[in-house]
C-alpha cells in the first residue's frame, strides 16, 4: 500500500493526464449527446471543431501519460520569489483560496469596499503567516551563474557554460 502511494506521489503528473482525459470526455459528451444543428450554408457546422478538440485532448492525455510513465517530468516554473527547494506550502494556498471564496460570499452581504478590505488583509495574513519567517538576508547568490544552476536554470543551459 505504501509502495503504491509513493509510486503515485512520484507520478502525480498522471493527474494532469487524467484531467486532460476528463476535459476531452466532457467536450465530446457535450457535442455528441446533443449535437447542435447546422445549416446548409455552414458546411463544417458547430460540431466539427469540438469533436476534433475532444479527440486531441484524449490523444494528449494518452501521450502525457506515456511520457510520465517513461520518467518524463514537467518542470515546475521558477521565478524570483520562488524557492523550489522548500516543499509546497499547501496551507497558504488553501488559505488564499478560502479568502477569495469568502470575498465572493461577503460581497452581496457587506458590499465591495468591506469585502475588498477583508480580501487584502486576509491575503496578507495568509502570505505572512508561516512560522519559519527568516529575516536573514542571503548574499546576492550567483543563481544564474555556472555551477549553481541546478534549481533555476537546469533546462536553460547557461550560455556562460559554453
Amino acid at each position, binding site marked *: 500500500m505504501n509502495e503504491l502511494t509513493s509510486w503515485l506521489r512520484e507520478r502525480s503528473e498522471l493527474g494532469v493526464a487524467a484531467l486532460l482525459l476528463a476535459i476531452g470526455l466532457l467536450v465530446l459528451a457535450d457535442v455528441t449527446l446533443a449535437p447542435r444543428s447546422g445549416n446548409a450554408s455552414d458546411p463544417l457546422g458547430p460540431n466539427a471543431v469540438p469533436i476534433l478538440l475532444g479527440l486531441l485532448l484524449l490523444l494528449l492525455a494518452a501521450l502525457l501519460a506515456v511520457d510520465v510513465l517513461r520518467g518524463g517530468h514537467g518542470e515546475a516554473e521558477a521565478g524570483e520569489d520562488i524557492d523550489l527547494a522548500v516543499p509546497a506550502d499547501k496551507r497558504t494556498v488553501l488559505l488564499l483560496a478560502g479568502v477569495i471564496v469568502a470575498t465572493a460570499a461577503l460581497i452581496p452581504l457587506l458590499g465591495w469596499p468591506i469585502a475588498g478590505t477583508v480580501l487584502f488583509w486576509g491575503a496578507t495574513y495568509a502570505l505572512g503567516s508561516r512560522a519559519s519567517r527568516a529575516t536573514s538576508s542571503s548574499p546576492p*547568490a550567483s543563481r544564474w551563474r555556472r555551477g549553481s544552476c541546478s534549481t533555476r536554470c537546469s533546462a536553460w543551459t547557461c550560455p556562460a557554460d559554453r
Partner: protein
Amino acid sequence: MFENLTLLFEGFGSALTPANLLFSAIGVLLGTAIGVLPGIGPAMAVALLLPVTYAFDPTGAFILFAGIYFGAMFGGSTTSILLNTPGESASVMAAIEGNPMARSGRGAQALAAAAIGHFIGGIAGAIGLVLLAPLVASVAVDIGAPDFFAIMVLAFVAVTGVLGSSRVRGFAALAIGLTIGLVGLDPLSGQPRLTFGIPQLADGIDVVIVAVGLFAVGEALWVAAHLRRTVDRPIPVGRPWLSRDDLRRTWKPWLRGPFIGFTFGSIPAGGAEMSTFMSYVAERRLSRRRDEFGKGAIEGVAGPEAAASASSAGTLATMLTLGLPTTAIAAVMLAAFQQFGIQPGPLLFENEPDLVWTLIASLFIGLVLLLVLNLPLAPVWAKLLRIPRPYLYAGILFFACVGAYAVSGQPVDLLVLLAIGAVGFLMRRYGLPVLPAIIGVILGPDAELQLRRALQIADGDVTTLVSTPLSVVVYLVIAALFLFPLVGKLRQRDADVPPPPPRERVDV
C-alpha cells in the same frame, strides 16, 4: 512612404496632447515599476488594467499599454543587474553579464549600457515599425480566410512546439486554452456550446477573467506555495555613466541588437527571450574579449538589451498588421483590441489610422521619457525591491478580484477566477507553459470562425485551405517546425551532443 510620414507627424500631434502625454507618462512609470518588481510582469499588468481601461478611449489605453511594455523592459534589466534576479525573462542575459559587472564595481556602467541599449533598440524598433508595418499591412489586405486560418495554426504550433522543453505539455496547454475559448455561444449558429445549461456561461468566459486568472491569480498562488523567505539586497551603485572605452565597446552591440531583436520579436518564435539569447550568442562570437563573457562583458549587456526593446516593437508590428500575438503581452493586448471592438489586422491601418499612428508616435515619446527616468534614477527604482512580499502578492490578488468583479458585477465571477487561477497553478506546477493557453483562448474562436468562413465561401471544398500561395507556404513552415526537432534528435543520437534549447519562461 511620404504619406506615412505625414500620418506619423499627425500621430505626434495627437500623442503630444496633455491627455495622451499623461497616459504615456503613467504607462512608462508603471512599466518601470512592474519591470523592477518580482512576480508581476507586463502581461499580468495589462490584464489587470483591462477592466479599468474600458472607461478610457482606446487610443489612451493602448498608449498606456505600450508604455508598460517598454517600461517593463527597462525596469527588468535594473533588477537583473543589481540583484541577479531577472525581473523579466527577457533580461536573463543582462543578469549573466550585468550582475558580475555590478559585483566588480561596474554596476553603474552596466546600468547605463542597458538603459541606452533599450533606448536605441526601442527607437530602432519603432522606426522599423514605421517603415515595415504599413508595407506588410498593404500586402496583407488581400489575404483571405484560408490564409488567416493557416497563420493562426502557425501561431498555435510555433508557440507550443518550438519553445517549451516538452511538446506534449505545450500542446496540452494549448488544448486547455482552446477548450476555455469554446465555451459560450457558437458565433455562426448562435447555439450554446459547453455551457451545460448554466446561463452565466452563455456569453463565454470573459477573456479578462481568463487572463487575470491565469496570469495574476495563478502566479500569486504558485508563488505563495513556494515563497522565498530570504530577501536578497541589491548591490548599491552610483549614477549610471559610461567611459569612452566603454562606449567604444558598446556602440556596435547597440546597433546590432535591434536587427536581431526586431526580427525575432516579429515572428512567433520566442519573443524577447529568443531575441536576447540570439543577440548574446552573436556578441559573444564577435567579441575579441570572449574570455570576459560570463564574468562581466559590457557587450553582453548592451547587445541583448537593445535586442529586447527592439523585439517589443517587432511584436507590436506583427500584432498590429496581422492580428497575430507572438508573446503573452501581445495576446493580452489583442484581447484589449477585441474588447474595444477593434480588429487588429491588415485593415487596421486603413480603418483606424489615428489610433495606429498615435500609438506609434507615443512609442518614441515613451522611450525618451524612459531614458530620462531610468538613466539617472535606476538605483532609486531598485528600492522598490524592499516591498514586503505578503503585501505585494496580496495586492496582486486584490486587483485581480477587483478586475474580475468589475467585468460583470457578479460575485460568482470570483469563483470562476479562482478556478482558472487553480488551472494556472497546476500549469506552473507541472510545467505546462501559460503562453499557448492564453493564445488558445484568444485566437481559438477566431481560428474556428476563419476555418468555417473559408469552407463556407468554397462550399465545403476542403482544398480551399491550401488554395493560395501564402497558405501553402505557411503549412510548409508548420511542417518544418514539426520535423526540425526530429532531425535534431536523430543527430543527437549520433553525436551525443544535446543542443541546448532555450527554455521558455513566460512573462506574467
